[in-house]
């Protein structure tokens, strides 16, 4: 006889969902989908131990569980807090959360150089999205921003520490995918710096994935550097028989030319499979690949602008008065873009 599967019932912004015990609030929200999913800059489901650092995914737990209905005293990081049966969570319906998130976004941006016009990540940058959704138009920071020298990590990857938001994702990649620990954080506080120890080049087969996991433009592909803006390129899913990795990638075309190769990312910017450096850097001809289909692109993405889907608000919002109210500001903005 199969054991009865215990499911926890969680309510996020008034929408109930049943999830397995041990699921985090963030993943429960992702099962619902739509605008109630807290943004995550540092959490990466494929990397063990990530999360809890950027604080953009803060949510309010207004009811702890069925057994202990007390609310949690502070806002909690949804990516690292597991659900309890009967838990009630407020994300965009709580003004406290929206306010705190706005604060976090402001903090993330005060030392960011805002050099989007020359940044390769522009157009697919999580910080841009976040700044657009939650940030203010101007900044209240009037001091000099911290600056660092650019560092080459191997001959294919460049680190712009100025743009880094210290999400630690690349550190986890280096720790978990590669055998030796050569990549870590130096110093502390706002002088912290991602670095390979003594600028030692990382030449592991999978180290290119630090580019994919970087939510901002701190780690960029030198073979793609300044080649093109991402919104002028067209993503196409493709695969090849690769001896080291699964070989499932997205090719970014400009005309007939493959400008860059990345892992296949889902709607939260997380790759399906980590790909090897050969796939990423060496095989840039259509003849190397078996093409599948154009990559589906989020309707709000600048990459999709002009040639993909029309605006279609997620169904959860259609049906829920409370969410519509909470989301009014953001809906109005997307309406303008239609």
């Amino acid at each position, binding site marked *: 006889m199969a054991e009865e599967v215990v499911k926890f019932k969680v309510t996020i912004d008034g929408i109930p969902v049943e999830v397995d015990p041990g699921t985090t609030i963030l993943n429960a929200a992702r099962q619902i989908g739509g605008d109630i999913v807290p943004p995550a800059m540092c959490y990466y489901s494929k990397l063990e131990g990530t*999360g*809890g*650092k*950027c*604080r*953009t995914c*803060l949510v309010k737990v207004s009811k702890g569980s069925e057994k202990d209905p007390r609310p949690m005293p*502070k*806002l909690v*990081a949804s990516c*690292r807090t597991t659900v309890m049966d009967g838990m009630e969570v407020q994300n965009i319906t709580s003004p406290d959360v929206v*306010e*705190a998130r706005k*604060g*976090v976004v*402001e*903090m*993330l941006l*005060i*030392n960011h150089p805002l050099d989007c016009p020359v940044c390769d990540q522009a157009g697919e940058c999580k910080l841009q999205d976040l700044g657009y959704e939650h940030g203010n138009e101007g900044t*209240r*920071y009037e*001091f000099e921003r911290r600056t660092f020298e650019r560092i080459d990590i191997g001959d294919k990857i460049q680190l712009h520490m100025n743009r880094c*938001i*210290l999400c*630690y994702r690349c550190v986890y990649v280096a720790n978990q995918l590669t055998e030796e620990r050569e990549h*870590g*954080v130096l*110093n*502390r*506080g*706002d*002088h*912290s710096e991602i670095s390979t120890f003594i600028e030692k080049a990382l030449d592991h087969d999978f180290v290119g994935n630090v580019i994919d996991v970087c939510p901002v433009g701190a780690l960029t592909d030198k073979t793609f550097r300044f080649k093109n803006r991402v919104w002028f390129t067209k993503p196409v899913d493709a695969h090849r028989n690769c001896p080291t990795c699964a070989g499932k990638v997205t090719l970014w075309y400009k005309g007939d030319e493959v400008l860059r190769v990345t892992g296949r990312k889902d709607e939260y910017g997380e790759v399906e499979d980590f790909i090897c450096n050969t796939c990423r850097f060496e095989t840039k001809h259509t003849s190397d690949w078996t093409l599948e289909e154009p990559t589906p692109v989020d309707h709000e993405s600048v990459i999709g602008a002009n040639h993909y889907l029309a605006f279609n608000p997620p169904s959860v919002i259609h049906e829920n008065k409370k969410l519509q109210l909470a989301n009014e500001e953001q809906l109005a903005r997307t309406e303008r873009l239609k």
Partner: protein
Amino acid sequence: MGRKLLLEHINEPGIQTFDVYRQKGGYRAVEKALKNMSPDDVVEEVKKSGLRGRGGAGFPTGMKWSFLAKPEGVSRYLVCNGDESEPGTFKDRYLMTHIPHALIEGMIVSSYALGTNTSYIYVRGEMMPQIRILERAIAETKAAGLLGKNILGTGYDLEIYVQPGGGAYICGEETALLESLEGKRGNPRIKPPFPAVAGLWGCPTVVNNVESIASVVPIINDGGEEYAKIGIERSTGTKLISAGGNVKNPGVYEIELGVPVEEFIYSDEYCGGIANGKRLKALVAGGSSVPILPANLICKTINSDARLMTYESLADGGFQTGTMMGSGGFIVFDEDQCIVRNTWNFTRFYHHESCGQCSPCREGTGWMEKVLYKIEHGQGTIADIDLLWDIQRKIEGNTICPLGDAAAWPVAAAIRHFRDEFEWHVLHSGESQSRNYGLAHYADPIKPVMQ
């Protein structure tokens, strides 16, 4: 004179050596606990004593011990937090320097109560002399058969190791301390799991302050109930207070909890009043991270009750008009001190010590420091004060560990109580560079709040 439990024999010549300490009745608690009591009896005794953590948060030690998970076949650890780095606090260093065996004795009894066979004393890296002293004390104790294999023939084994810290304030946070002890970068862990379930190397761990562990000795010697008779209500026992700033006699004092703050500052037994006949302006009662109080809220609470040196009385009035016991770093400011400069100085410390793991603290502490520097140096605007308030509000409560809160509270309290001094710095930018704001109206009696 109040009773002294920890520092009773502090003036005895040679008390730092094993022989003198033993002569003065040292290691009685080890004999009593190991020979006549079960580990649960010891925990029960500590619970009865009402001892509260002396490191800052004031969490009941007995309760913390009873939370320790005890799965079969998994080792447990006791870690003593000697990473004392809070500006204004220097009580643990005093204890470790002058009476190291009190800590070692407490460690043995506590380890026995928790059933650990390996215990660590994590001492701040800058305190090299204290580390040497503790290591010597451990060697002496071992030679006397009170530490090591089969202590006093009871079959209980214990090893104590001293670990120098890496030189960071953040390593005083318990999970960062454990990371550091494991040899990693001292970043606080995300809780849960709490150390009582998964701490050092994933094993159940208790982390206690130096003074809390040393306080276990008198509790076992005299019994928990006897210990609980000292103090008031839920603040029991004695506490080491490190008094500094503009007082006549700065130093470490052992007080019975419940001494009025006024008596502590002005009585000759303790601080002896404000130095050079000046007037009292402000007080930081428990180390730099607790809210600062203006003169009119120090000796009396908002309801005109006398403020006492207890966890509850110092916190009377919450964050609006109260402060906290904290770690006992008692910093007194006289009328010549500038609150803006002091707040800037504290914030500079937190900016320097933020580990950089989570965004609000990493970016916010630096931002606050820069804004405060600007105001202090006469280039601020009124809007900057509001900005500062807004920044601290967005740090507080949104970070992984309490360092964010510790950085936000002093700024919040300074603006709450001393806003006109900040405004004076802005509006009289020239004058503020050449003289101090002085006492102003901060000592004026306040009207009790009518409900």
